């Protein structure tokens, strides 16, 4: 199995992601919106970090800045020591969105091969890698199916396989399980934990589900809206993310962390039961 040549060795101590003093404003006909203000964040290689906060607090915007799908208004974003733009061109990250975003006219296998194909991998390499990934996400029997023949959860697994195709050291995920039912979602979380353990990639994961953030993450970044700011960063003390199993969801440590994140989210709003747009389930 040959590697797709994209990445060199990382010098020790260089973070996977470093966001420094970033503001982001959008201007439109109806004036300007400050989506993010004064954002500082570093993600270590192999670390799983979740961004959580109510709708409109700038989670997606922050992720898109890291992916160089948007440019910061002020401040800087670096990925493995490179500018975000260079990191994108060098294919340092894989990305998955809330919508699977598969190409409906391609088979599952051809969808997974898409990034490899665009970057000139040989047919043999593509086939071998797609076979590996299909197995990794448990869809070996569906390589020849079309996306419209799969359930939502299966489509999302294809999207994750596609994001992993070039063995990125960084995975960016924007509410990838947001459209799934609760049971499928928990199964996908368990699978993601396993996949991350196997690949050792750093992950920046946007969610608005507190238990999801706690179950998956080494650290949870709690954000607040208008303007989007980082309110607090909470280290989750549940052991190595890769070792987490389903039974952890019943564990009292898990509940303690969920409560801690919930309190941080509700912050100054005291006894109000829930921040709008944040799920407490």
């Amino acid at each position: 199995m040959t590697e797709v040549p994209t990445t060199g060795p990382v010098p020790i101590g260089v973070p996977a992601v470093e966001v420094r003093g970033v503001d982001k404003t959008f201007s439109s006909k109806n004036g300007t919106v400050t989506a993010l203000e004064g954002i500082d964040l570093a993600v270590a290689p192999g670390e799983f970090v979740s961004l959580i906060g109510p709708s409109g607090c700038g989670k997606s915007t922050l992720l898109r800045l890291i992916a160089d799908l948007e440019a910061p208004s002020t401040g800087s974003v670096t990925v493995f020591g490179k500018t975000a733009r260079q990191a994108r061109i060098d294919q340092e990250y894989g990305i998955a969105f809330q919508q699977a975003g598969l190409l409906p006219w391609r088979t599952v296998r051809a969808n997974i091969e898409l990034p490899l194909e665009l970057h000139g991998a040989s047919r043999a390499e593509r086939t071998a890698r797609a076979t590996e990934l299909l197995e990794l996400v448990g869809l070996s029997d569906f390589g020849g199916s079309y996306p419209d023949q799969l359930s939502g959860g299966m489509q999302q697994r294809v999207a994750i396989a596609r994001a992993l195709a070039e063995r990125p050291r960084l995975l960016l995920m924007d509410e990838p399980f947001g459209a799934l039912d609760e049971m499928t979602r928990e199964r996908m979380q368990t699978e993601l934990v396993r996949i991350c353990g196997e690949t050792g990639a750093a992950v920046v994961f946007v969610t608005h589900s507190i238990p999801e953030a706690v179950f998956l993450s080494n650290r949870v970044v709690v954000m607040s809206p208008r303007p989007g700011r980082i309110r607090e960063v909470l280290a989750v003390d549940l052991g190595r993310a890769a070792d987490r199993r389903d039974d952890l969801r019943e564990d009292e440590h898990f509940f303690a962390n969920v409560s801690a994140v919930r309190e941080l989210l509700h912050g100054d709003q005291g006894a109000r039961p829930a921040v709008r747009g944040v799920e407490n389930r």
Partner: protein
Amino acid sequence: MRGAAVRTVGAPILLGIVALALWQLAVVALDVKPFVVPSPLAIGTAFGSTPDTILRAALLTGANALVGLLVGTVVGILFAVLAALSRVIDEITAPIVAGLAVVPIVALAPVFYTMFGANAQTARQLIAALAVFIPVFVNTLRGLRQVRPVHRDLMRAYAASPWQATRTVTLPGALPYLFTGFRIASSLAVISALVAEYFGGPIDGIGRAITTAVASSNYALAWAYVLGSILLGLVFYCATLALEILATRHRRRA
């Protein structure tokens, strides 16, 4: 499965047979004159007595329609791609297309016959091509503009070149729209090529055959040619519909 298929095909056929029988009965019982409407049997007999002349006339009109369909489609796609790529071309073509869309194109037939000579088929083919151009252009352009934001983001994340993005996302995404335009255009091509024959040009084609038969009071034959033109239109429609269905398989968004 089989039962349902038999019913979807069988029901319209049965209905058609019943309608024809009622038509025949009405014409005979009420003694309807042939210039009002001939009986289906009379039309069938006229059709059966000269199937080769009807086929020849239909093929000629069909050939004109096909030339117009292909030329109009190629030009329509070309302009749609240019309009999608360039804002300037888009702004220039928009009013032209809007203007062309309200022109009853067959009205141009007499003018075109004097332009290209009354002995050539060019005028008829050109009219069909003009009629075809509009729906192909409009639908293809809509398809090309239909790229979903998530796919655009994906292509940027992959650092795909503009040509790679066009080839992997934009063009395949536009195909179903293109084929819908093509299907709509195919009927227009036949209608335009046929109606253009009413306004002059060479004395051939199925439209001309209809007017000639009516002029010589051979009403059953005129209706037989009408039947021929219906079959011609159906052939165009079914062929392009099959292409459209083929192109729109697996297109639910994911």
